[in-house]
């Protein structure tokens, strides 16, 4: 019996020839994040298993908005020094972890990574098993290993040709609206098919990023020349693309024909509430905040499409549009490409790269009764601030177009 991508990667890291769903393995882990260094110290351990495999950046309250947060950062810097962590990225050189870690070569095809933060499934775009470890990360810091239950694999086959102006965000909102937000529960989800190949790396990244929104442990793509192009100057160790065996077995296979896809939005409350935006425009949903940011959709091509839409136009007088690139590297590229200038001239507020608004932390928290259209990944009640606020999820194009209109609109009318 053949193996899926996840089964191959787990078997290789668990020192076994084959891995089957349901099997428990202690696996060697290739890298982790530094969130749990304090816990390691509390356990009386004075070194990490491999300081070059620990990555860290402060992104959630970045830079610190309160004295308490500042003291936390101070403490973090002490730990980074103590444990000689080389891959630490200061403000101005960092951004949001999933983007920053990838830019610095943390993930390559075939890797097994367990790091803190739920959107770690993002790393699956690199043909790797990347998942969240929470308290578990301290076990990785100490021993460089972690237990895994080999997950069932689900295959999502994306057929057809993606129409113009539909992107990865529309794909995942569509798939989640049809399959529900638990089709990936505990599972490795592998996305394949013509549309998976057609999508840019950034678009696939959005799909892997929202893996956790459908419950997934891993959200994996196959690797191709787009993957290699991104990794070329970033990963200097040898790696091999991992593909599933032809006779691998899947718990379920879902096929979608995306040739007729139209831009999607997810209604407030759940990322699975996706509907075609053309069905919503009649409701005239007024927008108070338009957020183009987060680890989901604030990469260079996301900023580019927003700049193209907003070029020569103005953000609606009643809307605050917040733009926060996914990393400072992306910020710099967007600056040089002129996208940030265009957005600025349109009246958007361009912030540094931060998690702040995405999780309702700071730099753009929603008030009671406000409505936000957001390029991020979660619209749970209270996620971006007040529990009385509404968050709609959409692609960068839909966010930008809605910012101009002051209400949720179909981006195809604005391009």
């Amino acid at each position, binding site marked *: 019996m053949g193996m899926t991508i996840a089964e191959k990667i787990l078997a290789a890291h668990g020192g076994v020839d084959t891995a089957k769903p349901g099997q428990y393995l202690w696996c060697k882990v290739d890298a982790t994040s530094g969130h749990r260094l304090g816990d390691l110290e509390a356990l009386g351990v004075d070194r990490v298993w491999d300081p070059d495999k620990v990555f860290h950046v402060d992104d959630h309250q970045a830079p610190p908005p309160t004295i*308490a947060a500042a003291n936390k950062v101070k403490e973090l810097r002490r730990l980074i020094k103590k444990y000689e962590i080389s891959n630490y990225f200061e403000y101005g050189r960092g951004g949001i972890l999933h983007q920053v870690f990838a830019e610095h070569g943390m993930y390559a095809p075939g890797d097994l990574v367990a790091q803190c933060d739920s959107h770690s499934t993002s790393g699956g775009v690199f043909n790797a098993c990347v998942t969240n470890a*929470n308290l578990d990360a301290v076990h990785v810091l100490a*021993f460089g290993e972690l237990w895994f239950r080999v997950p069932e694999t689900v295959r999502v086959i994306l057929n057809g040709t993606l129409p113009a102006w539909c992107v990865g965000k529309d794909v995942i909102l569509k798939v989640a609206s049809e399959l529900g937000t*638990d089709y990936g*529960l505990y599972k490795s989800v592998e996305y394949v098919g013509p549309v998976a190949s057609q999508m840019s790396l950034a678009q696939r990244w959005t799909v892997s990023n929202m893996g956790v929104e459908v*419950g997934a442990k891993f959200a994996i793509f196959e690797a191709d020349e787009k993957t290699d192009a991104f990794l070329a100057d970033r990963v200097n160790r040898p790696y091999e693309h991992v593909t599933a065996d032809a006779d691998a077995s899947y718990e379920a296979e879902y096929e979608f024909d995306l040739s007729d896809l139209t831009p999607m939005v997810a209604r407030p409350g759940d990322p699975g509430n996706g509907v075609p935006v053309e069905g919503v425009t009649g409701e005239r949903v007024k927008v108070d905040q338009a957020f183009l940011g987060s680890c989901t959709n604030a990469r260079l091509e996301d900023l580019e499409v927003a700049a193209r839409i907003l070029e020569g136009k103005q953000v609606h007088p009643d809307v605050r549009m917040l733009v926060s690139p996914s990393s400072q590297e992306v910020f710099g590229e967007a600056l040089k490409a002129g996208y940030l200038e265009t957005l600025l001239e349109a009246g958007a507020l361009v912030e540094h790269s931060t998690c702040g608004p995405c*999780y309702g932390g700071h730099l753009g928290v929603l008030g009671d009764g406000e409505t936000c259209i957001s390029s991020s990944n979660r619209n749970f*009640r209270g996620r971006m601030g007040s529990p009385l606020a509404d968050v709609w999820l959409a692609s960068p194009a839909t966010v930008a177009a809605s910012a101009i209109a002051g209400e949720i609109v179909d981006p195809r009318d604005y391009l």
Partner: protein
Amino acid sequence: METTNTGRVWKFGDHISTDFMMPGHRVLANPDLSVEEAAKFCMEANRPGWADEVQPGDILVAGKNFGCGSSRNGSQSLKALKIAVVLAESVSRIHLRNAVNTGLPTLVAPGIADFVEEGQSLEVDIATGQVKNLDTGAVLQAEAWQEGTPPYEILQAGGLEPYMKAKLKERGLVST
């Protein structure tokens, strides 16, 4: 180890996210909050006042995809409120691992949503997974952790911290 718990049931629906258990605008914005203080905001958005009503030893029953959403350790708040056991139709994997590491017994119990009403009492054996409804007498089988698996060992040890302490000592990574 005593594995049987008896308690009164609080029922929640499907997709109870960790944002409900630990609201971001309360918890992340106030990093100095103690575990107990953070627990006071548990379920504030979906069920205001619940954290004040819940009693030590109560049992939480939920629907599908319990603990979806962020990796915030919602189990920590539930444990601080002294919830004894969590039973759910299904549980998000991040949350399930957090629960094991926190030492809060959390069992996947297909059928539980229709098996018990709020306010009824359950007797739960976390070792065997047997759940008994003390009001109706009905019995339901939940999925227990298999002996010998890593999560079983960690739960047995009382959570990740005690488990790791023993392992560190065994491997000579700590002096004491």
